[in-house]
């Protein structure tokens, strides 16, 4: 690992200031970034840990829905969101393994926007709002493709607010080695329609399966998805599954998610 200065600010303002330094990089749990640094695949000059910022931690139910601080660990979400948004809590409880869940954070996950990460599916599938130190960004605008988000230079995610659907579920098919999602589908039924977000499958990262949303909005049952087809174009093909297999998984997992939704 190349060396760097390590700073751990206590406020968002101090974090933003620290991140304005040349070569500064935010660290929010570091379960992806740290292995990357160990491999010398990145060499920031300053690492700014965001997990010491109290105002970015915690799970809180409010009028807009469930607000989760960006520095809240997956383990905390799994525990504290369970009463309010069980599908999301279950998603958080299925990320990585217990030790990873005790360090990794929701903010770190969605800022990274790994195409196989679970949280992007939960955020996009819920139609959540990503809150940064500068603005609020709708999930539909936030995720912009492979490892790409709407975040600008110096902008950090401070929290995410989830509207609570009537029913929802996340079903993930593990990549057998990394335990990332080979494909994962988040289905959420709201009063005004259904959202379906797919992770792990596309070269462009998380996306909404609009045909299924339409079909499920009309009839929220697994059979509504049965007649749909998923194109393999643009889907990931790797050691663990072909694009055609992932296309199949999208459909199968969507059905399972609909059946599991409660």
């Amino acid at each position, binding site marked *: 690992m190349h060396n760097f200065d390590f700073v751990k600010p206590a406020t968002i303002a101090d974090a933003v200031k620290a991140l304005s330094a040349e070569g500064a990089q935010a660290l929010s749990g570091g379960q992806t970034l*740290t292995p990357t640094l*160990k491999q010398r695949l990145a060499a920031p000059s300053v690492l700014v840990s965001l997990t010491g910022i109290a105002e970015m931690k915690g799970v809180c139910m409010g009028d807009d829905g469930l607000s989760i601080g960006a520095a809240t660990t997956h383990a905390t979400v799994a525990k504290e969101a369970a009463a309010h948004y069980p599908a999301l809590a279950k998603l958080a409880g299925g990320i990585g393994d217990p*030790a990873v869940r005790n360090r990794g954070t929701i903010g770190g996950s969605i800022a990274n926007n790994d195409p196989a990460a679970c949280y992007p599916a939960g955020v996009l599938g819920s139609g959540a709002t990503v809150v940064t130190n500068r603005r609020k960004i709708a999930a539909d605008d936030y995720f912009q493709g492979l490892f790409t988000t709407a975040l600008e230079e110096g902008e950090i995610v401070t929290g995410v607010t989830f509207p609570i659907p009537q029913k929802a579920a996340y079903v993930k098919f593990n990549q057998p080695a990394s335990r990332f999602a080979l494909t994962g589908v988040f289905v959420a039924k709201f009063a005004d329609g259904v959202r379906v977000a797919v992770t792990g499958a596309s070269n462009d990262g998380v996306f909404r399966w609009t045909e299924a949303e339409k079909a499920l909005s009309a009839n929220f049952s697994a059979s509504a998805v049965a007649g749909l087809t998923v194109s393999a174009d643009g889907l990931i093909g790797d050691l663990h599954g072909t694009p055609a297999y992932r296309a199949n998984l999208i459909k199968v997992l969507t059905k399972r998610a609909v059946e599991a939704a409660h």
Partner: protein
Amino acid sequence: MTKVTMTVNGKTVSGEVEGRTLLSTFLREGLGLTGTHVGCDTSQCGACVVHVDGKAVKSCTTFAADVAGAQVKTIEGMNNPDGSLSVVQQAFQDHHGLQCGFCTPGMVMSSAALLAENPKPTEAEVRHYLEGNICRCTGYHNIVKAVLAASGQDVSSVAAE
């Protein structure tokens, strides 16, 4: 170099670390606590699991400076005060839950964390909880059995050893 102070196995320790110093490096090289092992580069094998403020974390994926002030517990701090094996450790020995011993410290730390959270886990819960700890020797059979036994459950009906 900056100075960090934390409590390791009940003792307050301080040391000079670089920004890049990992908790595993600090424990092994700084404090000579070599029971915490490093078996991979990508935060998956779990041989390096320790407790930070009571929670299992991978010390090879945690910067020492990030846990300054924390309570850290390593495998060396797991024995009973009289030096005997704790319940979890004893269960691993009784049920042959280890062979080469390399993954064992992380496995014990994860198991202890599980039992702290969930004192009577089911077999499926044990297997799920240990998915971040890779063992190549045991086929996990006796590890799962040991954890169930450590929770006070009767494992005599588990498929013969």
